């Protein structure tokens, strides 16, 4: 056991975030638990090498101690002593367990804009957690050193749901964000934490790739306040080759979230030569308009070479601008460019009068002209969750 101490106040957070992006409880394989320098020790996290053995939800038992997991469309068939694709759920004598309940390997406090969620409590802090594991394997994953590892290979901290909520409150975070890796693979932990958070006035958001089956998603929507979905492409082939997943279940999830009435935003990471054709942008935007409506914010974000895609350059800003133009021409009202700090498309413009209502630089709010979610200039509502 070792200890990592950190203190969090909003002022400290802002200073730390500017320097490092938040506070860290862990790195990947071989990483040491650490605290951000200069933040004091008001909050303490305990690292642990134990794994949880909490029975997983949504699975069926088969013959010979096999099980089939129903949490995501992958529907892993898992033999005794084996794990599913996510690496975080293990079959022991025909009972499926989550090994990561209460054991995040990343704990930060971020601006909600970092998720990004631009129409959800702007300027608020999000107490952000992730466990090891993921149910896809994107070749461009920025967080592969946690998402593509098993929980015994990451440095985890002991953080049961009650403690997450407590720390969120102590750190002045209005929101708990389940993020960085793929929260669906720590579904039980996320669900229980979100439920407890609501009881204490803390809201919850999920940052997901959207590979989740309908029933668990519907149940989860009852505990969440917003979801950001990474729609990684509008091509099945891209999903197969680059994501190791499927497009259709993600589209289904987006429609389900809309039906459940939950606020959602979409991120589309534009990867040069792989998902950046104008044709794909057009098809994507038309689908969003038809199935989700014109008010769903979409963020076209810049790719940076990493993990298994180091041979491609960062996305040219011009490509992101082309995507934006296509989305606006298609009729989508809230279109953003991400990972290009200072770009004018980081700001929110009123869907009715076109005036800038929220100015942003990177993750920070520079101006704000909404009152109760209504444009100060034209008096028309801007969709979102503002208070």
């Amino acid at each position, binding site marked *: 056991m070792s200890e990592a101490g950190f203190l969090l106040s909003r002022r400290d957070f802002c200073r730390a975030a500017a320097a490092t992006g938040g506070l860290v409880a862990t790195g990947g394989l*071989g990483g040491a638990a650490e605290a951000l320098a200069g933040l004091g020790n008001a909050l303490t996290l305990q690292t642990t090498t134990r794994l949880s053995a909490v029975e997983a939800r949504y699975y069926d038992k088969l013959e010979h*101690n096999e099980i089939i997991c129903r949490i995501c469309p992958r529907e892993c068939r898992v033999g005794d002593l084996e794990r599913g694709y996510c690496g975080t759920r293990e079959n022991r004598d025909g009972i499926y367990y989550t090994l990561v309940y209460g054991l995040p390997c990343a704990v930060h406090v971020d601006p909600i804009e970092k998720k990004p969620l631009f129409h959800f409590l702007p300027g608020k802090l999000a107490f952000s957690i992730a466990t090891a594991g993921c149910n896809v394997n994107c070749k461009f994953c920025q967080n592969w050193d946690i998402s593509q590892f098993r929980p015994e290979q990451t440095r985890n901290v002991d953080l049961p749901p009650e403690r997450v909520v407590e720390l969120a409150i102590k750190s002045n975070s209005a929101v708990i964000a389940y993020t960085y890796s793929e929260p669906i693979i720590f579904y039980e932990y996320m669900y229980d934490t979100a439920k407890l958070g609501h009881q204490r006035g803390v809201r919850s958001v999920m940052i997901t790739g959207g590979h989740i089956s309908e029933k668990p998603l519907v149940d989860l929507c009852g505990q969440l306040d917003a979801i950001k979905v990474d729609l990684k492409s509008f091509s099945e082939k891209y999903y197969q*080759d680059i994501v190791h997943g499927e497009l259709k279940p993600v589209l289904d999830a987006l429609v389900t979230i809309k039906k459940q009435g939950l606020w959602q935003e979409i991120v589309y990471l534009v990867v040069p030569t792989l998902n950046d054709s104008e044709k794909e942008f057009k098809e994507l935007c038309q689908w969003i308009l038809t199935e989700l409506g014109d008010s769903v914010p979409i963020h076209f974000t810049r790719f940076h070479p990493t993990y298994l895609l180091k041979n491609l350059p960062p996305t040219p800003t011009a490509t992101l601008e082309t995507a934006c133009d296509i989305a606006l021409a298609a009729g989508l009202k809230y279109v953003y460019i991400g990972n290009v700090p200072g770009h004018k498309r980081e700001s929110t413009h009123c869907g009715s009068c076109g005036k800038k209502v929220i100015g942003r630089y990177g993750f920070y709010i520079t101006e704000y002209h909404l009152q109760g979610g209504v444009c100060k200039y034209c008096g028309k509502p801007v969709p979102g969750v503002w208070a």
Partner: protein
Amino acid sequence: MPAEKSKVVLVRSARSVTKNGEIDAKATSALLAAGLCLLAGQKDAAVSLAGYVQPRQKVGIKVNCLARRVVVTQPALTEALVKLLQEARVKGEDIVIWERTTDELKQAGYEPNMFKSGPRCLGTDARGVGYSSRLYPIGSIGSLISNILVEEVEVNINLPVLKDHNLAGLAGGMKNFYGAIHNPNKYHDNHCNPYVAEVNALPLIRKKNRLTIIDCLKVQYHGGPAYNPGFVERYGGLILGADPVATDVVALSVLEKIRNAHGRPPLKREGRHPEWLMTAGSEKYKLGNASWDKIELIEKTV
């Protein structure tokens, strides 16, 4: 694919597994020696091993302990191999018996200091071992590799156990290298095809692994890969070969024969035929001979 036929040896001994299901160490040792001699065409087992491992090389022995008990690489077999390696002038301290985790090794009966003369039993998770810092692209996936294979050993002997596998169909020699990567869960889609081939095509594995000896003393012929007591055959055999594909082709035939004898359908009918074997033998991967007309099978009962 090798132009010549690949020699594979299947040896059996009724005495290697007792009526109580215990392993007879002496009979197992004799079985191993006989198999090695047949494979190398030599009269002496240690001399036979010298064809695959040079004196003073650092030698890894990759066992399979996933099932934790019964259908694991039998410690008595591993001990017999260690003894022969030492007779072949490999130093005890240069031998590493390895697996994914130390806990799996212990549960299967391997103690870290079970050998007095130096060989170590190590899980990749042991302190100071771990996985490579370098990410190795493997097909469309990427993995870190056990530092035991990357840094510790110069050559490796693959010493798995023959099992049915609910996804791969066959867990024999090539599948055992899933225990060398940090994220095997990413390699089970599509019944492990082409992933078993891709892992074994990794130059590190291809270059270092010299010999496969599949423990068929007790075979999990159905309901694997964990131990499933209703479906274990006391087969009393070993399969040996230098060609990993050909060795697994023979292993598959043994598994199917045992399944058939117990009224189990062919793996193909259960949708689990290991297509990855043909992939491994294909022009693309060239890991060995997958076709029977390119395999010379020598069978002997000891």
